[in-house]
C-alpha cells in the first residue's frame, strides 16, 4: 500500500505543543534496550537537530513576518520533538557508551543506505565513508575496554561486527579532497535525495556530539581520540553535504526537510519493537505530516510551486531499516579498503603520486602519532589483546588481523 503524506492532514502545527511532563519521557534501559531501538533514537535526534538548524538558517535569510512566524512555530515544535527523542537516552549511559551507539548507527545506517541507493556515485560516496565509521567503532570499543573494562558487544549485541576498517590514521586527507560532484535536483531519484539528507543529518549530529564531548574526559587518550575522530566527522559532513544540489530555494529545502522527516518517522514506526518508543514515532509522524502541509502551503503561496511538482506521488515503498549488514561491510572492506580520494575521484592509494597533497597532509597531522593507534596499542598492552567482536570470522584484510602484544 502506498502512503502519500500530501493526502494526509496530520496534526495542525498549532496543536502540537506538549507540557513539560510530556516532554520529560521515561528513558530506555541501556543494557536491555534493543541496539536498533537505540540506533533509531540516535538517528531521529540527529534528524530533529538538523531540522532546527535548517530552520534557524532560513530564518536568518528573511524578515518576512509570516515566514518567520511559521518557522518559529514549527521550530519550537521540532525542539520539543528533539527533547522527547533525545530524552529516551538514559542518564546512566555514559558519553562513551552513547558514542558506541553513534558509531553502530553510522555503520548500519550507511550500509543500508548504500545497499538501497540507486545512484552509483552516491553509493560510492556512502561506501567510502562507511569503512571509516566502521573503524571508528573499533577504536571507541577499544577505548571502552581500556577505560571501563567493558565489552562494547554488551551494547551492540553482536549485531554489528567490531574490527578495524580503513584505519583512522589514513582518514586525514586534505580538505579539498572531501568535496564531490553533486546530484542534480532535476534528475535525482527521490530516494537518493532522502538518503543524502539523512546521512548529512546523521553525520552532522555525530560531529556535534564529538565537538561537545571531547572535553568530558580526564584521560588524555580519550580526549585525543575524540579530537581525532571528531575531525574526521567534520570531513564526513563536508563530504556528504557536497552531494546536495545547491539550486533548491529555501522553501523547497523546507519541504524536502519535512518530507524526509515524514519518511523517517514512518520508517521508524514500521520496525519499532519497543511499544513506548513506537508510540512516540507514531505521534511524531502525525506531527511531521502537519509540518509538511505547512511548508507546502508556503511553497505554493510564495513560489507558485505545487508540492506535487517536486515530491514523488508516494513515500518510497521500503522503509529505512536498521538491520545487520555484516556481509555487506565485509564485502566493501575487502574491495575498497585501499581507496583514497583525489578531488572528486576515488583512487587506490598506490595510484596517488608520491607528491600528492594527501601525503603532505598526512605528514603534518600524523607527525606526533595518532590517538586512534595509541588506544589500540594501550588496550593490547593492558589486556594482552585488543578488543574485537568478529562474529563472522577473521578480518577480510590480512594486515588488519590482530597482532600480539609486545612487552
Amino acid at each position, binding site marked *: 500500500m502506498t502512503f502519500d503524506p500530501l493526502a494526509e492532514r496530520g496534526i495542525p502545527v498549532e496543536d502540537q505543543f506538549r507540557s513539560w511532563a510530556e516532554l520529560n519521557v521515561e528513558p530506555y534501559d541501556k543494557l536491555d534496550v534493543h541496539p536498533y531501538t537505540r540506533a533509531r533514537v540516535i538517528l531521529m535526534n540527529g534528524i530533529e537537530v538538523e531540522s532546527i538548524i535548517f530552520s534557524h538558517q532560513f530564518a536568518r*535569510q*528573511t*524578515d*518576512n*513576518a*509570516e*515566514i*518567520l512566524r511559521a518557522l518559529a512555530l514549527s521550530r519550537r515544535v521540532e525542539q520539543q520533538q528533539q527533547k522527547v527523542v533525545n530524552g529516551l537516552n538514559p542518564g546512566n549511559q555514559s558519553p562513551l557508551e552513547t558514542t558506541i551507539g553513534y558509531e553502530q548507527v553510522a555503520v548500519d545506517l550507511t550500509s543500508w543506505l548504500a545497499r538501497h541507493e*540507486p*545512484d*552509483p*556515485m552516491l553509493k560510492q560516496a556512502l561506501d567510502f565513508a562507511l569503512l571509516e565509521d566502521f573503524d571508528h567503532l573499533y577504536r571507541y570499543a577499544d577505548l571502552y575496554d581500556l577505560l571501563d573494562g567493558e565489552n562494547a558487544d554488551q551494547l551492540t549485541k553482536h549485531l554489528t561486527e567490531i574490527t578495524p576498517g580503513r584505519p583512522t590514521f589514513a582518514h586525514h586527507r586534505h580538505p579539498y579532497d572531501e568535496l*564531490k*560532484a*553533486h*546530484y*542534480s535536483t*532535476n*534528475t*535525482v*531519484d*527521490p530516494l537518493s535525495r532522502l538518503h543524502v539528507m539523512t546521512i548529512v543529518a546523521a553525520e552532522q549530529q555525530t560531529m556535534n556530539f564529538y565537538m561537545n564531548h571531547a572535553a568530558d574526559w580526564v584521560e588524555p587518550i580519550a580526549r585525543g581520540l575524540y579530537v581525532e575522530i571528531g575531525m574526521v566527522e567534520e570531513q564526513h559532513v563536508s563530504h556528504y553535504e557536497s552531494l546536495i*544540489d545547491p*539550486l*533548491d*530555494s*529555501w522553501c523547497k529545502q523546507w519541504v524536502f526537510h519535512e518530507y524526509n522527516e515524514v519518511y523517517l518517522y514512518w520508517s521508524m514506526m514500521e520496525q519499532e519493537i519497543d511499544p513506548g518508543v513506537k508510540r512516540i514515532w507514531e505521534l511524531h509522524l502525525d506531527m511531521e505530516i502537519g509540518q509538511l502541509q505547512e511548508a507546502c502551503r508556503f511553497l*505554493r*503561496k*510564495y*513560489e*507558485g*510551486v*505545487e508540492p506535487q*511538482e*517536486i515530491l*514523488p*506521488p508516494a513515500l518510497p515503498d521500503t522503509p529505512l531499516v536498521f538491520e545487520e549488514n555484516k556481509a555487506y561491510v565485509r564485502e566493501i572492506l575487502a574491495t575498497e579498503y585501499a581507496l583514497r580520494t583525489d578531488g*572528486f575521484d576515488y583512487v587506490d592509494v598506490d595510484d596517488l603520486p608520491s607528491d600528492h597533497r594527501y601525503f603532505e597532509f598526512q605528514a603534518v597531522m600524523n607527525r606526533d602519532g595518532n590517538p586512534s593507534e595509541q588506544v589500540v596499542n594501550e588496550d593490547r598492552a593492558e589486556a594482552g589483546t585488543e578488543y574485537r567482536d568478529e562474529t563472522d570470522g577473521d578480518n577480510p584484510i590480512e594486515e588488519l588481523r590482530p597482532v600480539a602484544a609486545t612487552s
Partner: protein
Amino acid sequence: MPTLTPTKATGGVTKLVPAIYAEPDRQITDADLASFMAGSELNGPFMAEMLSGMLAHERCGRHLYRSCEGRTLNPILQAKYREFGEETEQHVEILEQLITESGGNPSYVGPMARAVLGTDTNLVQSTFLLEGSLDLMTAETSMLDAVFLAESMDHTNWKLFTRLTETMPDGDLRSRYEAASRQVEPQEDEHLGWATQTKERLTLLQATSEAPAGSKADELIARVKNWLAD
C-alpha cells in the same frame, strides 16, 4: 499539462560537468545533442542549451505569475498576472513541443537552464524574503519589478529565437519555429509593454500623490487596491 518542474519522474536528464553528476541513464552528452535541430544549419548542442534555458525561464515565469497573482492586493494587477501566467504556461507547452520535434528532450536541464534557474529562483525569492522591511506599495512594486525583469529576458529570448529562425533553411522545422514565433512574440511584446507601462504608471502615481507616511494599514491597502482603477 506541461511540466513546470522537471524531475526524474518526468524524464529529467542533465549534462555532466565537473561539479554535477547524474545516474547513467540520466546523462546527456554533447554527442547526444549534436543531432538536435538536424538540418537547421545551427549548432545543435548550443541550440539545445539555449532552448532549455528559454524553457526554464518560461517555467519559472509561470511560477512567478502564480506567486504574484496570489499575493497582490490589487485586482487589476491580479487579473493581468493570471492572464499572462496562463499565456506563459502555453509558451512552456509550445517550447516543449518544439524541443521534442527538434529531436531533444524537454526535461533536459543542462548548464544554461541551471544558470537561468539560479537567477530566477533568486528573482522570485527577492519578492518575498525581505517583505518585512517593505511597505505595501514597495512590496507590490517589488513583485511588478520581478515581472518586468523576467519579461525583459523573455522578450529578448523570443526576439533572438525569431532571428535564429530566419537563418534556418526552408522546411518543416523552420515552419514550426516560425509558427511558434508568430504566436508567442506578440504576446511577449504585450507582456513587456504592459510591465513597462504599469511600472511607469505606478511610479508616477506615487510620485505625484500625497505621501502615505503615517497612514493606517487599511488606508494603505485601500490605496493599493485602487491603483490603476481609472
